[in-house]
């Protein structure tokens, strides 16, 4: 399963992305998580297939615009990372992992 994080520059999300990969592995789910900046993520989506796109909370005011740009990718789940699940600490990322799994299985 491939997950994309989008934040302002793609820097801070990289750290959480790494952690999420670890946690998903511990929970027996193979996740590839990549982080991109708001200005470059679209190009990436056009070249690579992703299952889920999550917008980091600090740019949640851009969520509507991003969601609109993603409308053409039909199977892509687009959502926000809840602010209380966005820090690369084990228990916090575990919550994020559960959150994503619930979205996928919904």
């Amino acid at each position: 399963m491939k997950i994309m994080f989008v934040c302002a520059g793609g820097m801070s999300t990289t750290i959480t992305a790494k952690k999420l990969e670890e946690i998903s592995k511990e929970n027996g789910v193979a996740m590839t998580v990549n982080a991109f900046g708001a200005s470059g993520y679209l190009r990436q989506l056009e070249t690579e297939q992703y299952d889920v796109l999550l917008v980091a909370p600090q740019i949640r005011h851009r969520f509507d615009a991003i969601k609109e740009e993603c409308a053409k990718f039909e199977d892509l789940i687009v959502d926000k990372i809840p602010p209380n699940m966005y820090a690369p600490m084990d228990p916090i990322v575990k919550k994020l992992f559960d959150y994503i799994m619930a979205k996928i299985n919904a």
Partner: protein
Amino acid sequence: MMERLMLWLDEKFSTPMAKLSEQRHLRAVRDGIVGTLPIITVGSFFLIIAFPPVPADTALALWAKAHGATILLPYRLTMYMMSLYAAWGIGHSLAKSYDLDGVSGAQLAVVAFLMTMVPRAVDGLGWALPMANLGGSGMFVAIMTSILAVEIMRFVYKSNFKISMPEQVPPSVARSFKALTPTAIVVVLMTFITFVFGFDWHGVVTKIMAPLVTTSDTLFGVLVPVGLITVFWSAGIHGASVVGSLARPIWTVLLDANAKAVADGLPLPHIAPEPFYQWFIWIGGAGSTIGLVLLMAFASKSVYSRSLGRMALAPGLFNINEPLIFGAPIVLNPILIIPFILTPIVLAIISYIAMAFHLVARPFIMAPWTLPGPIGAFVATGGDWRAIVLSVVCILIAMIIYYPFFKIYDNKQLALEKEDH
């Protein structure tokens, strides 16, 4: 009470304001100028090579002095004409936002911007365009003309504006004429404004914007964006990206003026271009959180605070602090928000005074924002060792201000951990 106030601020102020910054023209300006940052950064480094931070009688300094004009040529063609690159980016981004061809929008924006200047025939040189207004001082004109050009393009394509052709003309020919229309309107319009009526774009716009530029370089003009950015972050919104949409054009004007002064061997006129904020206020990220991270990593009693501090330390050294902001969390946290807003204000006042009295050199180089604070401060000021001292002093002050709030936070975490066991 405090929590309700925070929620109210988030709902009524930061979220609507942040949404406003997503307005398409503001977004185009932001994207266009952000797109030029690599050009500005790399270009500005040639200023350090031309004026190396070493004693004047060393071999390096003598070599740089002998070849100064040549060393500065890359700077002249990059940072020195940043508004030209910005015009391209603004036009591209705005056209894309209207679902129009990005490259056409970019090119038309550049045409409109260049047509605010009057080329002259110079003996022995041919036709020459004075370069000064291609730089930061032309930024506001570049913004205006780029928007104008793309809006004309949109008007032609999206409205029912049409050049009617006789029935016999094949549709593809009619279309090719239509593609010429926006360019023709822009070129003719700019010809009339600039060359026929002789409107002095750069003189007039500079005069109109002068109060804003001057104010942005005062202590008050520094404290307003500093306060706004931390208030945004307190609600978990990327403050620099929101406030920067509006303020960055002005900051680049200040930076450009400082760089020009250095290249010309004059004293630096401004204190507060963007690197001032980056290296003397946002040390460790917005909120000057390097102070909090160091305390958490090395003075925590609670397990959570300590492990969060240790995890956030490495990114924090490179000015990335989202792990801390969302991990502590600082967002909507009535205790930690107080020093998060207060510390940058104190650091801004101290650093501003230090530079106003020339105790520390003023910034003129756009160092990459992910450099560790003291190193970035050293580079941004063209290699002033006193900038390192100021940066370290700022870090110590940040630790002092954060300390009492850190203690409350740490004790609270400790109490929670004891409850769990």
